[in-house]
């Protein structure tokens, strides 16, 4: 059962990886990185049961914390990037593309 769960999580990791590599916009990649971190948390949790050491769950919790803080930090940097006089990000090339793409998809 745990082996099946591991296989499913790895499949989800591959999907997030494809989005992180191919993803045309910044937000695709941020989201892919974040969800990849979540998958890592899940994988480590399941891996503990698979290896017969459920105390790995504590490590998974710590990873969830790191992942959360890292994503916040990344997003924070993009709020710093905004020039003072201009409206927020839409002036930037890739980001404009992302919003249009997101609406179309």
């Amino acid at each position, binding site marked *: 059962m745990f*082996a099946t769960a591991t296989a499913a999580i790895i499949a989800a990791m591959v999907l997030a990886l494809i989005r992180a590599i191919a993803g045309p916009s910044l937000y695709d*990649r941020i989201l892919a990185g974040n969800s990849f971190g979540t998958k890592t948390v899940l994988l480590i949790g399941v891996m503990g049961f698979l290896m017969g050491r459920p105390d790995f769950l504590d490590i998974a919790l710590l990873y969830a914390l790191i*992942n959360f803080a890292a994503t916040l930090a990344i997003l924070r940097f993009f709020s710093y990037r905004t020039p003072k006089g201009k409206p927020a990000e839409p002036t930037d090339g890739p980001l404009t593309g992302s919003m249009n793409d997101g609406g179309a998809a």
Partner: protein
Amino acid sequence: MNGFQTHLGPLVFLDLSLLTMLVLVAFAMLRSRHLFAVVMLSGIYSLLSAAFFVSLDAVDVAFTEAAVGAGISTVLMLGGMLLTARREKPVTPGRAPVALAVVFATGAALIYATIDMPAFGDPNAPANSSVGQRYVEETPNDIAVPNIVTAVLASYRGFDTLGEVMVIFTAGVAVILLLGVGSVRGGTRIVDKDEDE
């Protein structure tokens, strides 16, 4: 070896998929010219290697990898990226074959060196026979910490760890000086010509 036999199937599958994804991410990082994608992929690379370290039972290394690799260095690289262009310039093609030859020579030398390494889990290997054996035997009496790696890092090699902490502190101060406090907002940034593509 018989003790591992029951768990061998799924765990080998797990290790293989983690390593395959590591190789995929590494090639994607090499191929990509979009620096932000490379930063995010390097974060993913760190998370993958942390998961692989957990699978190798090296939990302490995995902690460090996740905290430093996926957390701090992603943020530091983003901070560096804000001060430079968003796209990497293509490498001049003339230099590529030389670099490839150097990389292949180094890789071949490293692989040649692994032939002399003792087999995985060999009880007669130097890591398992001399001082490692003593750590395994004496840690419960000397320090009474359940994790031997923690005991080695924090007690047996305490001064070494103190020196490492000083090195890391110096590196952190240097990075802060290089990036410049406040230059994220105030510094000038190189704008790509083709940024609006």
